[in-house]
């Protein structure tokens, strides 16, 4: 390598560096003429799909990626158009976004904030992505959202359920379509009161991290408002795989409901343990012992198998919904991949379309213009009924599904049945209750 410096090219390079060094103080401030970060100038626009391809949520990540590929196909005019046909806004023409062909890059978040940020930064710095979307954990969503705010691109969150994403860590460049812990609690509580009565004693097992805390708090507040009593709330390590030692004390506590604030593999294991302990056959305080899982997903239900039968939980979307939007999405996803989409796939697909639509309506890829188009945007036909992107915290407000493990599943995908669709008004909250500052949008450059 040191030899190379003696060549003509080496000398030129050194000269260029020296020149850049001398000029640096003046150039650094005005780095380019573009109006905003990664302004697409050619005939195509690049989106960044940052999903977990390895790690605990790899299944969700794979499904998210399928949804994004489908969304890109539809945006570019391929396939059957999917939700673009049922979407209330008709700005999308199937000719890409603003006539530019949609291209995409993918990355692996590994469900680690560092890896997710590294991957997102390479999409922004190297591939020129003008929007980042995806993710299957709130930690990652919060980290990448902050990065996008700094870099001046739009972040469309994927599956993230913690209140923090659009609560205390909300950012002007970030948007979330998925619902959150608060909504889960608010939607679940009345159903629980109707089915199990208002004088129940609840015992919480909570995954020991942010999402667990916010979920526990949400379920606790809303069930206590219904007259329930919380006997105890025990935190379990995230890496725990055997919950028997946590289940045993539940019976001695005098509680008659067990709330499992667990997600993914945690929930599969704790629920299996609880059912194997025979909790559901017990009679406590002259009432049947019940188990509740605040956040459900089909992939989790699949993992827990027959144990989910009759257990209540909430979910953002389910493929068995019968509105036009859901049917259209299930059809085009099923045609392409051969099985119904998960809620992670749905939220990601919708986010990609919402972004594209906002760009069309704003007439610009500028993050500030896009954010303005999304703020306060009301739409329908995306599978969740009438939905509002609230301007104050960039959170979507829509109906929340309360589901129950199906008693007689007809296929490996038919595991959950919808008990009730909780209307938006019941899960809406004041934007200021979680604190945090939205700040103002950052177009970068």
């Amino acid at each position, binding site marked *: 390598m040191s030899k190379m410096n003696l060549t003509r090219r080496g000398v030129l390079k050194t000269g260029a560096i020296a020149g850049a060094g001398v000029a640096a103080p003046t*150039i*650094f401030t005005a780095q380019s003429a573009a109006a905003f970060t990664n302004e697409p100038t050619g005939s195509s626009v690049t989106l960044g799909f940052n999903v977990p391809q390895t790690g605990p949520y790899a299944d969700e990540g794979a499904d998210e990626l399928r949804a994004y590929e489908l969304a890109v196909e539809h945006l570019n005019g391929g396939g059957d158009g999917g939700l673009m046909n049922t979407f209330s806004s008709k700005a999308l023409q199937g000719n890409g976004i603003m006539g530019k062909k949609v291209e995409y890059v993918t990355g692996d978040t590994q469900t680690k904030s560092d890896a997710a940020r590294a991957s997102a930064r390479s999409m922004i710095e190297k591939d020129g992505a003008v929007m980042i979307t995806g993710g299957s954990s709130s930690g990652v969503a919060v980290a990448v959202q902050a990065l996008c705010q700094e870099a001046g691109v739009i972040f469309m969150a994927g599956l993230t359920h913690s209140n923090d994403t659009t609560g205390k860590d909300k950012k002007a460049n970030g948007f979330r379509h998925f619902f959150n812990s608060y909504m889960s609690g608010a939607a679940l509580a009345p159903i629980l009161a109707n089915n199990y009565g208002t004088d129940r004693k609840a015992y919480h097992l909570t995954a020991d*991290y942010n999402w667990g805390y916010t979920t526990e708090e949400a379920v606790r507040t809303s069930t206590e408002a219904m007259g329930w009593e919380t006997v105890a709330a025990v935190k379990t390590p995230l890496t725990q795989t055997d919950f028997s030692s946590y289940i045993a004390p539940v019976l001695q506590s005098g509680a008659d409901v067990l709330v499992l604030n667990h997600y993914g593999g945690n929930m599969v294991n704790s629920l299996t343990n609880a059912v194997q302990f025979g909790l559901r056959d017990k009679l406590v305080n002259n009432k049947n012992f019940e188990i509740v899982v605040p956040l459900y997903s089909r992939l989790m239900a699949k993992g827990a198998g027959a144990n989910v039968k009759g257990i209540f939980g909430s979910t953002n979307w389910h493929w068995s919904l019968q509105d036009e939007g859901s049917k259209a999405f299930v059809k085009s996803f099923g045609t392409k991949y051969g099985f119904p989409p998960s809620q992670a796939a749905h939220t990601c697909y919708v986010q990609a379309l919402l972004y594209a639509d906002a760009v069309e309506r704003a007439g610009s890829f500028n993050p500030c213009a896009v954010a303005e188009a999304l703020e306060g945007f009301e739409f329908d036909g995306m599978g969740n009924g009438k939905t509002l992107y609230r301007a104050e915290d960039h959170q979507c407000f829509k109906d929340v599904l309360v589901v129950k493990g199906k008693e007689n599943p007809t296929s490996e995908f038919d595991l959950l049945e919808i008990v009730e669709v909780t209307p938006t008004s019941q899960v809406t909250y004041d934007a200021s209750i979680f604190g945090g500052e939205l700040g103002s949008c950052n177009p970068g450059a």
Partner: protein
Amino acid sequence: MFGLDKKDFRLLLLVAVLVALAPFILNPFPEGSGMAQFNAGYPDLMQRFVIFGIFAIGFNILFGLTGYLSFGHAAFLGVGSYAAIWMMKLLTMNVIPAIIVSVIVAGIFSLAVGWISLRRSGIYFSILTLAFAQMSYSLAYSVLTPITGGETGLQPKVNDPRILDGTLANGATPKANLFGLEMGSSFNLDVGAWVFTFNVGYYLAGIVMLLAFYLSIRIFRSPFGMMLRAVKSNQQRLNYTGLNAKPYTLAAFVISGMYAGLAGGLMVAMDTQVGAERMFWTASGEVVLMSILGGVGTLIGPVLGAGAIKYMENILSKINSDILHTWFAFLPDGLEDFVVTLIYPFIGKGWHLTLGLIFMLVVIFLPGGLVEGGQRVARLFGRKKKSTDTPDGKTTPAE
């Protein structure tokens, strides 16, 4: 020069040149070409190269010289990061206090961990450090959530105190800077089809790495370094000569812990976010891989290993089946699909598999790591063979 002999100085100079010219060297393919996928000359990855280079250099001082294999170095990196982000939240967004404090805090923490762990050696030492690191990780992830932010980690917020900084302009976000020069700002040089990016943060990290590298050369060549090698070759004999090895190993442990803290502080300076998984045991394992892949006990090896692993993590993992299809589009359809299916498991999410294979090949065929590979190639083409021509300081000490 600088108290180095000619050979070491040449090595330092080589590293300096490589660091300075990295934006060119890492971007060999023109923008928009199919090969641009393999370009690594964008700020984030270049910063990672040098930061993990520092981390690996520090780890090598402990592992390469004393032979103590620590499986908990990520904890020091994490502690340094948390210290740095708190400096930025409380004091100022200027990176200098953040970096200095991260080194100090990591040093104190490694002193405590080393004090206990170094009572044992060999596998027991490794397990102890691993236990400490996992403990730190669990604490940061859950119990210490008020200090560490738990799962969501910490970031500078608009309404942090930052007592030394003036109030932000309305709508501005706090950005890491060096006396006003923002870490994130870059200058793009367009040369024909090529685009070369010069990033402020990268050059700051690069300068720090050169200093760290220089310090490590001095340690390797010092009587202290010789003592550490003695610990590695035969600690029992050392004890019989009446020497207590503990202060030396502890000093090496603390120094390498401070290097890790420095790397952690720089990571925060480049990208203002800390998450607990930075301390996870796989992160500790990664630096062990870096050292072994590059060449344990050599000066430049760990830096090369760090570069190789980070390159694979960031470049290979981003190749997806779509890109493969465009590469092999010239093949007939059936054959194209076949080739893509064949390669697919090794790219994208399969990058770990590729890394594992390369690691196995290196360990089996090049026990001295990439440095040994380089030496073999050099010997193959070199005109004059000199047996002592090893830049790794493996010259046998006189007894």
